[in-house]
Structures are given as structure tokens and as C-alpha cells.
């Protein structure tokens, strides 16, 4: 009982301290102004002037394009169909500052100056006989890993792919252990449970109990 009171008083103090910290946290940040990234213009005294160009996700990085050029392979033939090339473009991230892949950006945002030349590089590499893996690798060497729409499955990136399943597996094991423990406890208390029923509880035959149990379960479903 005393422990209970102690915990309560500590919690109140803790809560007040937390509230004070929260208020301090709220009061500390400076006054500053922001505008949606999706707004491109700036107000001036006369009306509207055009600001820097924007993508759907923020300022456009117009100079992000870097050529990815490799000499054609000897006797090169196109390494893939147009459909396969489009699928490959879905795996490369446009570098204009948007969150889209090259194919989607160049066919959606026709003001983007980056995705069309990236597309041309891909077309030339396909005509030069390079495979999808080789093209992805060439882009990765030029732009870095961020040019890929999903992390390469190597090194630390494996944590990204594996962690959700590890967490899920761990949770499943924990739930299974919990259920096992619960069932153990239930098995241990079943006999006592019947004995602890009120003395004035109406009597029922096993058959009646079974029917009642079935009815309850049916009702609960």
C-alpha cells in the first residue's frame, strides 16, 4: 500500500516536471516562417514574381544530371525491349529533386530537365548492348546509391530488408510463448475455478453446461 502511494506521488511530480519540460520545449524554438514546398512564388510589394522552379516534392535541382556514357559493346544489339527498358527506368530515381522514378517523372513532369537526359543515357546503353544489371551499376557509379529506387541488398542495407521480418518473427515467437504460458496457467486453474463458483449459482448437468457453452460461443461469434 505504501509502495502504491509512493508511486503515485512520484508520478505526479514526474508529470509536472515533464509538463514543465514540454512547455520549455515549446517556448524555446525561434519564431520563423515557412511556406509549403509546393508554393513556388514569392510575394513582393507589386504582386507575384516567379521563384525558383519546383518539383512536386520541393525545389528542383536543375543541374543534377550527370552523363552516364559507356562505349557500345562490339557488335552490340539492343539488350532489351521497350517494355523492359521502361521497367528498368522504374528502378532508377530521377535526380531532379522529386520522389519519382525516371520513367514516371519524364512522362509526368514535362518541366523536368533531368529525367529526359537520364532516359537518353538509358536508351543509348540499351542500344550499346548493356544488360539491366550493368546499366544500374553504371548509374550507381555515377550518381551514388541514391539513384536506385530501392537499396542494394548488401551490407547494412540488409538490415532494411530483414528487420521487419525479424521483428515479425520475434513477435510471433513471443506470442506463441505467451499463449503456451497462458494455456499452462489455464490448465492449472480449471479445477479450482469450478470450486470457486458462488454457492448459490444454479446447478446444471454436464449436458446443460455443454449446451450453454455452445450457445454462449455461438452468441459471441
Amino acid at each position: 500500500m505504501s509502495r502504491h502511494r509512493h508511486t503515485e506521488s512520484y508520478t505526479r511530480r514526474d508529470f509536472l516536471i515533464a509538463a514543465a519540460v514540454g512547455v520549455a520545449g515549446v517556448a524555446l524554438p525561434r519564431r520563423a516562417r515557412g511556406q509549403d514546398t509546393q508554393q513556388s512564388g514569392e510575394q513582393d510589394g507589386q504582386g507575384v514574381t516567379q521563384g525558383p522552379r519546383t518539383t512536386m516534392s520541393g525545389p528542383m535541382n536543375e543541374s543534377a544530371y550527370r552523363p552516364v556514357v559507356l562505349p557500345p559493346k562490339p557488335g552490340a544489339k539492343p539488350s532489351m525491349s521497350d517494355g523492359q527498358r521502361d521497367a528498368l527506368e522504374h528502378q532508377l530515381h530521377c535526380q531532379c529533386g522529386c520522389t519519382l522514378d525516371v520513367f514516371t517523372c519524364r512522362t509526368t513532369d514535362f518541366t523536368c530537365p533531368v529525367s529526359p537526359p537520364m532516359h537518353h543515357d538509358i536508351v543509348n546503353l540499351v542500344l550499346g548492348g548493356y544488360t539491366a544489371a550493368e546499366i544500374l551499376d553504371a548509374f550507381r557509379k555515377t550518381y551514388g546509391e541514391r539513384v536506385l529506387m530501392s537499396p542494394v541488398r548488401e551490407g547494412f542495407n540488409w538490415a532494411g530488408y530483414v528487420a521487419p521480418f525479424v521483428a515479425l518473427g520475434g513477435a510471433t515467437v513471443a506470442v506463441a510463448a505467451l499463449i503456451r504460458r497462458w494455456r499452462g496457467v489455464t490448465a492449472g486453474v480449471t479445477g479450482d475455478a469450478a470450486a470457486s463458483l458462488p454457492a448459490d449459482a444454479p446447478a446444471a448437468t454436464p449436458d446443460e453446461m455443454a449446451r450453454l457453452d455452445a450457445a454462449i460461443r455461438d452468441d459471441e461469434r
Partner: protein
Amino acid sequence: MILLGEMSLWIALLVAGWACVTSFTGGVLRRQDLIASGERAVYATWGFVVVASLGLWTALVQHDFSLRYVASYTSRNLPHLYTLSAFWAGQAGSMLFWALILTTYSAIAVWSNRNRNRVLMPYVSGVLAAVTLFFLATICFGDSPFERLPYDVIDGNGMNPQLQNPGMAFHPPNLYLGYVATTVPFAFAIAALITRRLDAEWLAAVRRWALVSWFFLTIGITLGMWWAYVELGWGGYWAWDPVENASLLPWLTGTAFLHSIMIQEKRGMLRKWNVVLVVSTFLLAILGTFITRSGVIQSVHSFAQSPVGVWFGALLVIALSVTTYLVVTRLHNLEAKAELESMLSREAAFLYNNVLLVGIAFSVMWGTLFPILSEAVRGTKITVGPPFFNAVNVPLGLLLLALTGIGPLIAWRRTSVSNVRRQFAVPAFTAIVVGAVLLVLGMREWHALVAYILAGFVSGTILQEFYKGVGARMRMHGENPIMAFVRLVARNRRRYGGYIVHAGVVMLFCAFAGLAFKREFDVTLTTGQAFRATDPYGHAWRFVSDGISRFDALNRQVTAVTLKPWRDGRAMPLIESEKRQHVDSRGQPTFEPSTAVGIYEKPSQDVYVVFTGQTAPDTAEIRITFNPLVWWVWYGGMVMALGGLIVMWPASDRTRAQSGYAAVMRPAARPSPADAAL
């Protein structure tokens, strides 16, 4: 009115502070006068925030460009609907809108509990007032929509063209209504933890609020998908963008809670877990807001990097610390009152369902935050896009779909093998038939195939449940099938409303699986030129360019390309896609050009046309996409929302009284030989 609104905001801040202090103090000291004062202050805060909101709306409607916010997001030629929706188009206005919803919810929660949960209510009022105080402080000290410009402005900047869409007028309010509704269950959970009254009382109080949150999040997410599909022109509706993910996270944990709450109500189990889910749902809503407003992650939908992001980060840390402490110090109060009898039971199925839902939430959050983690650990920027999320979440989603069908077939407490055999026969048969038909038709996309087989299984489950229920009513009450169906649902809204939600889930999964058969074509057409393509169903299409036209509309200059489509030789309606250059009231261009997609919509597929560019006066670059089953996303979302509405519709007192059972029976003693002889 505008000045009054600004003043009201500051007064609301003070009153919310008063509500917070008096409510907590009243609760601790058990002073009824302070508790009553705190509750009155909650109502008063709502009133002042309403006045502040009316002030901003007045400024927007009157085009008062002396306010930076009005000048930044509206212009004189902006259509009326979007002038009103500009309230939540920018950072500062959306914060005020959040505060408006929060104070409205707070007032409703306090009023509806004026004669109930009286031990909890001082703390509920206190938590609600504390969160309100945070938002009002953020507005007043961080980013106020009433900030004035130091110079005169002739016309405003106007609204981003992509926000000038009916979907965007209604999507954010619904999302906010859902996000903010998570605060009320959170407040009740904190109150229950503080007072250590962790029985079913607080759960009963929060169940409807959790449903309200889930309902609006469902509508908001669906509308968001629709907006992205018709407005952004990338041909899809879900890109695993961080802000999209942020809206999905509280929806997932909220869905988990709505399932696990039933276990606590019926069996007294999962008490700790339910508290964790309620708290997590609120924290994830705040995390979503933090992601949207901090600029920490790049997104299509985000606001610019601004100081309010830091504020939300602070709120997140404080709320997490306080709730963790409260939960840890009250673990012994959260012990289960009953134990699981069988791994093959309804409650076990709900447990697995919870593990999966929370697992998906974790994987989505992990993928969203992984670029930050990677940069911190390796110093390398990476992109985590749809390929990653699909690789991780598709298997989990399919497992979840399977459980959606399995759960309702299993009885509470325990299920016998014969019961399993009987219950699973029809759904399993349906699944086998669906799979066989699709294989015969040549479907070889195994993810889609598994999805459709499972959809068949879940549909079989739902139909079986309705068939049995309707049949029973027809036999017992002599009702016709329609009346029996209506009364079946009306008499047991939670159960059958839930099945309707599951039907919506099936529709959604069918639509998602349809993406596997999407076909895109990137073409250049001069006027009169034709393009031929075959859709995923094998129909032959011919598209003829009808030319490019130019015209002016209300606040934009439009360049449009029109296609004449034929399917298997039959003429179809014209499809027109536009490029729009928005202009201000003086005809000067504003913003980058935007796209208006042309869509020929059918339940089987959409023909989605995007005018991507113009290479000559009569030559258009066009992307044509066959998008199978997209229609089912919107209607699946609606069906889910309808099911949610049925579930949360208040039950009559008579229905409530009929639910549950109170009698306790004990087994009779074996008759003695003497009794038997008599």
C-alpha cells in the same frame, strides 16, 4: 472579425492553459470546483478557437492580402471552393484547423461524459487541454496565420494548382479528423493509467472514438489516393511516399486496436497491449505530422522545413517518455483477467492479426525512416521506394488477407476439428474454384494469383456468414431475404458491419493485385495519327489523335490533346488530357505547369491518358496506361467506410441490454446412488 479572430487565438491559448492546470489539479486534489472550472475552460477554448477560425475564413473570403497567409495561398481569381479550402492549404492554417477539430472533439468528449467516467474526466480534460495548448502555442509562437505583411499586396500568390482539386479540398479535413480523433482515446488511456482504473470502463469510453478516427482515416486515405491518381498524373495511387506512409501508420495500429479491444471486452485479455496500441496510434499520428512538417524527409505532400517540426519532435519525445513511464509503473494493474484456452480460437486469430498489423506498421515506419538511419550509419544517401515496400509488405499483406478470412470462421475460446472442417468447407471451395479458373485463363503472376485466391477465400467466408445469418432469421422470424439481411445487420452491427469492412478489404486487395497487369505506352502522335495497343484483357485498342487545342479557363491557360479511342472496332468516348498554366488576376503565369489527366473509367479497367509534352504545334507526347481494377480502390474504400459507419452507429438501449450474459452456473453434483434410486 479578423482582429477578433487573432485576439481569440491568444485568449484560447490562455484558457487552454487554465483548463490544463485546473483539470489536473482538480483531479489530484479531488476538488470539484476546479474540475468543473477545467471543463468549462475546455468549452471556452473551443469557442475562442471557433472565433479565430471564423476570423481566418473571413480573411480568406474577403481577400485580405495584408495577412501573409492569405496572400501566400489565395488569389482573387481562385475558385470559391479552394478559397475556403485554403484554410488548410498551408502550414499555419492547417495547424489552426487541427486546433479547431481538437477543441471540438474535446468539447464533445467532455460533454458526453458529464455524467460518466467522473474519476477519469479531470485527467481526460487535462490531457486534451495540454495537447490543445501545444497546438495553440505552436500557432501563436511558431507560425500564425494572422501574421501581417509589412507592405501592400495587389493580389495573392494563389493556390498550388495540384491542390485545386475536389479531392484535395476534402482529403486533408478527413485525414485531420482521423488524426485528431486519436487524441481522445490517448487522453482516456493516460487518465486510466494515472488513476489506475484500467478495467473495461475506459475502453468502453474510447471504442467509439477509435472508430471515428479509423472511419475518417479510411476516407482520408482513400481520397488521398484518388487525388494522387487523378491529379499528379503518375498513373498510380500509392507511391509509398513518406507522407502517405505516415497516414497509414495510425490506421494500421488503430485497426489492430479495434480488433484487440474485442478480446479485452469479451475475455478481459490483452489489457497491456490495448493501452500500448492506443498510445502508439496517437504517437504515430504525431510522428506523421512531424514527418510532414519538419522537412526531415522528402515527400510529395510535405510542408517546407519549419520550426514547428522541432516542436512536434519535442511533443513526441515528451509524450513517449510520460506514457512509457506510466505504462511501466502500472504493469501489475494491467494483468489479464482470463487466459487463452486454445491456439485455435477467435482470440488467438485476433492476436495473430494484431501481430501482422503492427508488423506491417513497423515495416512501413522502418522503410520510411531507413534513409535517415542509413545516412547516419554509413553517411550514404539512399532511396527507399516502392520496390522495397512492395518486397516487404506484399507477403505480410497477403498473410493479413488470409487471416481476414480465417478469423470469423473460428469460435471464441476454442474450436473443434469438426467445426473447422464444417466452417472452412465453403470458403476453401470458393478459393479453389477462383484459383483454378484464373490458372485456366492463363494468369501466371503468382502474387496476384495468391491475392485473388485469398480474396476468394475471404469472400466465401463473408458470404457464408451472411447466408447463415439471413437463413436463420428467415426461419425464425419468417422474414423475406432483404428484410432478414437488413435486420441481421441492424441487430448485430459490430459483427456484420465488420464483415462489410472485410468485403471492402477484399475489393481493395483485388484492385491492388490488378496493378500486376498494368500496361503503359509512351507514344508521340500528330493530329490524325493512330496508335494501336492491346489491353490486359486482350482487347485491341486504337487511339487516334484529334489534335491539340488551346483555350483560357477561369484562372488558367489550357493546352489539351484529345484522343478518339476504339475498342475492338467500337468507338469509345473521347479522352482529353490537359496541360494547365495557372495565371494570376493580371494574366501572369504562376507556378509550374500542371497536368490534368484524361480517364476513361470502367470497373474492369481505366484507360489513363497523360499529355506529357508537345514537340510541334500538332504533335503531342502522350502516355497511355491501362490500369486494371482501379475503380475497386475507390469503391472498396467506400465500402470499408460504410462498414465502419455501421459498426459505430449507436445501438439502442434494448440491443445493448440483450448483449452479454450475466448468469453464472455451476455443474450439478453427480446424483448419488440413493438419489438415482428415488
